């Protein structure tokens, strides 16, 4: 078309883009380091994830909820992917007339299929973009917030589609109506026929302007051509500036997502490191302490708000709006971008063997570059930070695999360890943990009282057993949960399993201490427990509490505790399969299951509880609307069990109401927190006569043949 203009366009377009990207990347590199061993391992699986999640858009189209919106976005995305090839052709055309993209631009079968696909995709994208605008403007789903940015991008997409269609339409007209005065190339392979038979939509577009003269069509073509490419480059440059950055960053973000364990585990902080206390590098205290992966997460947030739709805190009116949280942090990060980069440059000047004075000076200069705002307090509120129950529903639905929870925990670490600014109502529970190994502060010597008369061995009496039964604090001290422990023991004894308990040697695993950022207390509990477990050479552990399960299985290895940990529902399920116990289908009425967050979303255990419930229920299991991966949290995780819920509605009441609405006569749980919260919820709703809350162990024990 016009090589000079094309070059200029590309130089400016790509130049500005590179410039913007350079600073964006430089900022990321100036942020904290990431342990790559957990981010670039298992390349095969990572690539698979990119295909399934990013390109396949599984979390959008594979989700029953908002499926249509998912399809809408997926097609816009796929449309873009398909059109990319066409765009290359157009850029080529800008330099060399008749430029054809290899393979896809030639008139072989692939070429034809491509033009057909491209054509249909353009039409679809246009419709989807139209629907998107309609949805935003008219339907207004609550999770979305309407910004000019959103409309601008959608309009650009519409412009891109229309310009391309009109471009092709004009071309069609010039070729078929006006005898191709500019000698455009088009497919006319006798085997497949004329190109235009395969591109009905462009032909349709052409019919809109076929009343105009050849010159007019030619003008339209030229204008549309340059409009299309310019819009594309404007679009490209617009991407890094806002939430559409995800178009570029989503793929690497999905690639780098944590495998195996759902997200990065909190780092085991070196609390003995005095320098860390002085520099305030324990936890996240300053914006520059975000890791670059966390920075990438912030870049990638599309502000879609799906997280809000599933967040138990947000849905009960607490001020934890995750996409706003991300946005606020991102804004702070970006506004401090120059300082963060400067700071990193200074930091690189500190070497191990540098002069102490020099180092002090550099550190002082670095301190000057700290943000003026306190993250917790100025950028986000305390209530926002502490409302989280760490349930991971947000991470489960996030289409671009942002890892929200570790960031929240790191911020809590900063608050607890450095700023001493954590909810003081936690003190009772923290003190209890430290003194007597349980959050209620009940004498440690009473931890095995529940086992009196049940003929249960302690490891001290006989450690040559197959399994250690980890009872947990609730199972040992809470009156209601003790019944679950008793049921579990009954089952194990019925199946003649060789097991023992630690009894008074067992201490809280430290889960909630870690989740509220108290690494010091967590490490203390972990060390003590690991020493005890290792002394007895424990190999296999059965845990009735998913929080214990999670900590023992996934977090203790960080500190030298490696055990095979299995949840009691998994284990009982095994026993049934092995025929060691048989179950009667004698539970009457509607039976539902409330998936515990730490069992499902943290450890992917969904089927075994269901298998058991189906084996005891006459009617079979009835699923709640929010079940499985999208189960709705009971509200107790993240240390919230030990705090008062003063803002908004009570999470457990909301969940209890959902269960009541399902007309359930029994709700099964498999976590002591869920048991407490849901049973309390039923009492609050005055439904405890109508809906019984039972642990799966209780249901099994009561229905063994």
């Amino acid at each position, binding site marked *: 078309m016009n090589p000079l203009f094309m070059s200029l366009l590309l130089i400016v377009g790509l130049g500005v883009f590179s410039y913007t990207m350079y600073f964006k990347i430089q900022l990321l590199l100036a942020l904290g380091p990431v342990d790559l061993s957990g981010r670039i391992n298992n390349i095969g699986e990572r690539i698979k994830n990119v295909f399934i999640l990013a390109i396949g858009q599984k979390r959008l189209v594979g989700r029953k909820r908002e499926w249509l919106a998912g399809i809408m976005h997926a097609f816009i995305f796929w449309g873009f992917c398909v059109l990319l090839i066409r765009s290359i052709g157009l850029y080529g055309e800008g330099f060399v007339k008749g430029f054809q993209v290899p393979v896809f631009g030639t008139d072989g079968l692939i070429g034809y299929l491509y033009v057909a696909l491209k054509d249909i995709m353009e039409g679809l994208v246009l419709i989807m973009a139209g629907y998107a605008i309609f949805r935003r403007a008219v339907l207004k789903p609550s999770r979305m917030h309407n910004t000019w940015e959103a409309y601008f991008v959608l309009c650009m997409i519409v412009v891109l589609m229309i310009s391309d269609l009109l471009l092709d339409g004009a071309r069609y007209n010039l070729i078929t109506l006006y005898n191709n005065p500019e000698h455009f190339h088009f497919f006319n392979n006798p085997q497949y026929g004329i190109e235009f038979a395969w591109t009905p939509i462009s032909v349709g577009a052409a019919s809109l302007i076929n009343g105009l003269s050849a010159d007019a069509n030619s003008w339209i073509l030229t204008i549309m051509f340059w409009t299309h490419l310019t819009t594309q480059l404007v679009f490209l440059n617009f991407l890094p500036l806002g939430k559409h950055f995800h178009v570029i960053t989503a793929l690497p973000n999905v690639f780098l997502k944590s495998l195996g364990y759902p997200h990065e585990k909190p780092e085991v902080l070196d609390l003995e490191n005095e320098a860390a206390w002085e520099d305030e590098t324990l936890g996240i205290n300053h914006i520059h302490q975000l890791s670059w992966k966390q920075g990438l997460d912030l870049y990638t947030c599309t502000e879609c708000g799906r997280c809000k739709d599933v967040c138990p805190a947000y849905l009960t009116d607490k001020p934890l709006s995750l996409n706003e949280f991300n946005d606020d942090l991102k804004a702070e990060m970006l506004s401090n971008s120059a300082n963060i980069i400067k700071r990193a440059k200074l930091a690189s000047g500190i070497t191990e063997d540098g002069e102490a004075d020099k180092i002090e000076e550099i550190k002082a200069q670095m301190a000057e570059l700290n943000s003026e705002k306190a993250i917790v307090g100025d950028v986000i509120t305390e209530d926002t930070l502490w409302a989280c129950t760490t349930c991971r529903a947000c991470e489960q639905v996030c289409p671009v695999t942002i890892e929200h929870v570790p960031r929240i925990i790191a911020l809590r670490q900063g608050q607890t*360890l450095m700023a001493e600014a954590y909810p003081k109502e936690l003190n009772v529970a923290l003190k209890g943990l430290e003194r007597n190994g349980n959050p209620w*502060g*009940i004498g440690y*010597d009473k931890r095995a009282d529940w086992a009196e008369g049940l003929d249960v061995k302690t490891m001290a009496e006989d450690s040559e057993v197959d399994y250690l039964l980890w009872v947990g604090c609730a199972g040992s001290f809470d009156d209601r949960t003790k019944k679950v422990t008793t049921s579990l023991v009954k089952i194990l004894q019925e199946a003649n399993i060789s097991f023992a308990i630690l009894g008074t040697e067992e201490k809280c695993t430290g889960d909630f201490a870690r989740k509220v950022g108290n690494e010091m207390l967590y490490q203390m509990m972990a060390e003590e427990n690991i020493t005890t477990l290792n002394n007895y050479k424990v190999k296999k552990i059965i845990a009735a509490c998913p929080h214990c399960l999670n900590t023992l299985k996934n977090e203790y290895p960080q500190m030298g505790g490696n055990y095979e940990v299995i949840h009691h529902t998994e284990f009982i399920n095994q026993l049934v399969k092995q025929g060691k116990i048989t179950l009667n289908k004698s539970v009457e009425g509607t039976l539902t299951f409330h998936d515990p967050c730490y069992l499902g979303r943290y450890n992917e255990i969904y089927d075994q509880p269901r298998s058991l419930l189906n084996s005891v229920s006459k009617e079979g299991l009835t699923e709640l609307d929010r079940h499985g991966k999208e189960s709705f949290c009971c509200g107790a995780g993240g240390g919230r069990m030990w705090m008062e819920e003063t803002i908004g509605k009570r999470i457990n009441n909301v969940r209890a109401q959902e269960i009541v609405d399902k007309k359930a006569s029994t709700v099964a749980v498999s976590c002591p927190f869920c048991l407490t919260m849901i049973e309390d919820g039923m009492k609050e709703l005055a439904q405890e006569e109508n809906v019984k809350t039972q642990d799966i162990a209780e249901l099994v024990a009561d229905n063994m043949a």
Partner: protein
Amino acid sequence: MKILTTVKRVVDVELNIRVNDGAIVEDGLQYVINAWDENAVEASVQLKENNSAETTLVSIGGDDNADMIKKCYAMGIENGILIDDPALAKADSAIYAKVLQKVYEKGDYDLIVTGKQAQDTDSGQTGVMLAEYLGVPCVSNVVSIEVVDDQKIKVSRLGDMGTEIVELTLPAVVTVSDSINEPRLPAMRGIMMAKKKKIETMDLSALGTSIDDLNGGALQSEVVEYMQPEARQSGQKFEGAAADITAQVVNLLANEAKVL
């Protein structure tokens, strides 16, 4: 203002405490800071934070007390004195009070804050006796302390007639109730810093005294036997229709227990 706070290491009363042959079974017991002294430490630290004051704690015991003292440092106490002398292995309130008197005389404190009683003995005598020995005023069961000026403080006491607001002329002794405050958890950073902090350890001679000065070590009273309290047995529990069971119980109260 210089504040002296006393801190005692006592058995953790959350545990079951067993008696065998008239003596306490030590096996399995753990020891912690006396809860009321924790309130005293918190009160002292708050006074320091709100006024210009210097805080010192004193504890009587041995090496085992170090952990507890370090935790108090982490709560904000600046100095610590440990009186470690085998002659004090058996002591009573009077002897403790006399030792504390010597500690007081070695420094120059304006205010002594102690917990109102210790969780092991539940006697509540030492603080008051100390005030008597020193000839200074004392208010016990205090729920708030306010500094008026460097000569006077104003305290609230839970007395028999209600809450008494008392103005004390310093130096004075104040024993605190647990209603006075919610002791903070030792600061994380404080715990790290406290690891390096020193404790001034003295035996009786370093303190400038000897067991002869302290009644020759003679105990004014001593425990000759420990016993386990009798557990109260549970009686009858009634479940069912409120009207029926309530009528039943009232009947029993009148005719069986004969108390109505």
